[in-house]
């Protein structure tokens, strides 16, 4: 059984956890913008900083980061494709570095931020409805990974082997995941409403 779900908040005591959520959100956005600029300095500095924090932020976050290696290989591949199509090594490297930087920064933000605090702060500066919608979207992302994990466990416990037959895996995991997610959206709305949530108040 996995004890770690990607993008799951994990109560912990460190500087990153204590920082103001709104501040972290702004830094996250700044990071994404910085790493997107076609400048060798901004790309490498933002990459270094986010990697430094990811790797120094405790075992929980490190494990999550390294468990994404499949995704990183995919990023590197897209970098290589970028290199081939644009015929510039720099473009390829930038592209791949950016993706990894953004993922690391996103992961850091997620695992160290209390969405309830963010919701409270955001609703002071933007409309309450928009803040709620944003937080609802954010809280949905970890749920996707958790559901995928649960589906896999359920399949494995019935002797399903994740074999080379991609199509079969797709049929048995990806499609149920999509169906499950649609149902989860409904259930989440029910859960919010049954706890007195009102989009107009």
């Amino acid at each position, binding site marked *: 059984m996995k004890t770690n779900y990607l993008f799951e*908040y994990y*109560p912990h005591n460190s500087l990153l956890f204590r920082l103001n959520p709104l501040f972290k959100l702004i830094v996250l956005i700044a990071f994404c913008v910085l790493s997107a600029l076609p400048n060798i300095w901004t790309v490498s500095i933002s990459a270094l900083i986010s990697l430094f924090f990811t790797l120094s932020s405790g075992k929980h976050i490190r494990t999550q980061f390294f468990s994404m290696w499949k995704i990183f290989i995919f990023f590197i591949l897209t970098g290589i494709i970028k290199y081939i199509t644009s015929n510039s090594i720099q473009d390829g490297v930038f592209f791949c570095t950016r993706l990894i930087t953004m993922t690391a920064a996103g992961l850091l933000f997620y695992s160290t931020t*209390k969405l309830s605090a963010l919701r*409270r702060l955001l609703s002071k500066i933007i409309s309450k409805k928009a803040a709620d919608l944003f937080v609802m979207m954010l809280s949905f992302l970890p749920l996707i990974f958790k559901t995928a994990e649960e589906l896999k466990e359920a399949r494995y416990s019935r002797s399903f082997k994740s074999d080379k037959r991609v199509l079969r895996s797709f049929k048995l995991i990806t499609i149920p995941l999509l169906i499950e997610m649609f149902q989860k959206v409904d259930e989440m709305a029910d859960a919010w409403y*049954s*706890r007195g949530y*009102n989009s107009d108040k």
Partner: protein
Amino acid sequence: MDKPLISINNLTHTLSNGTKVLDSINLDFYRNSFTVLTGRNGSGKTFLMKHLNGLLLPTEGEVLINNISTEKDSWNARIKVGFVFQNSNTQIIAQTVEDDIAFGLENIGLPSAEIEKRINESAEAMGITSLLEKSPHRISGGEKKRTAIAGIVAMQPDIIIFDEPFAGLDFEGVKLLLRKLIFLKESGTSIIVITHDLEKLLAHADRLVVMSKGKIVGDGNPDAMLKTAAENGIRIPPSENIETMTWLYESSKIK
């Protein structure tokens, strides 16, 4: 007689494929009442209860909460009628147990001192004080159930619906919940419990409602309704067991 807290008039719910999940239901619920709702799997208990707090709206008929229709004002229904889901996994929203209990309290706009007080009270009542800082993904099934219950109880609604609350709770959890149910009833909250496990509750319920295939087939005093319940597939506890359980409640109340 008092004005009913909840009044269900001729409620019918037909799905888009033509199935009638609920068929002409008429029921009233009053203050200070303790109702047990039972019936076979799939008889429509959860479906009916979701109409009481406006999560579902009738396709025919109406549900009135304090005389206001759930169709007109579903928020009114949701804060007056608390609903503890059958599957607590789907009820938990936040990243920590504490935040989860706070979620409803923030929605009804309580000041933060009051929120903190109620979190501590309800966590203590459900025996989860030591879990407050934990992530709900990392607690056990029964602990999740307790968290979900604490989250609703803390909102102090006029009436609380518990959908199969005993499923998955250990003996201590059952005792804590029973104690809380009795306490809630004594302090004026109405209770509706959906359960197949009459043994645990019969001594304290004042009404037993039996459903079958989307209809109410029995409604009245628990003793008078036992036969109907048995005809609808519910196991009737032997009377000596009911007495034992009564003794258990008394002892748990004193402790």
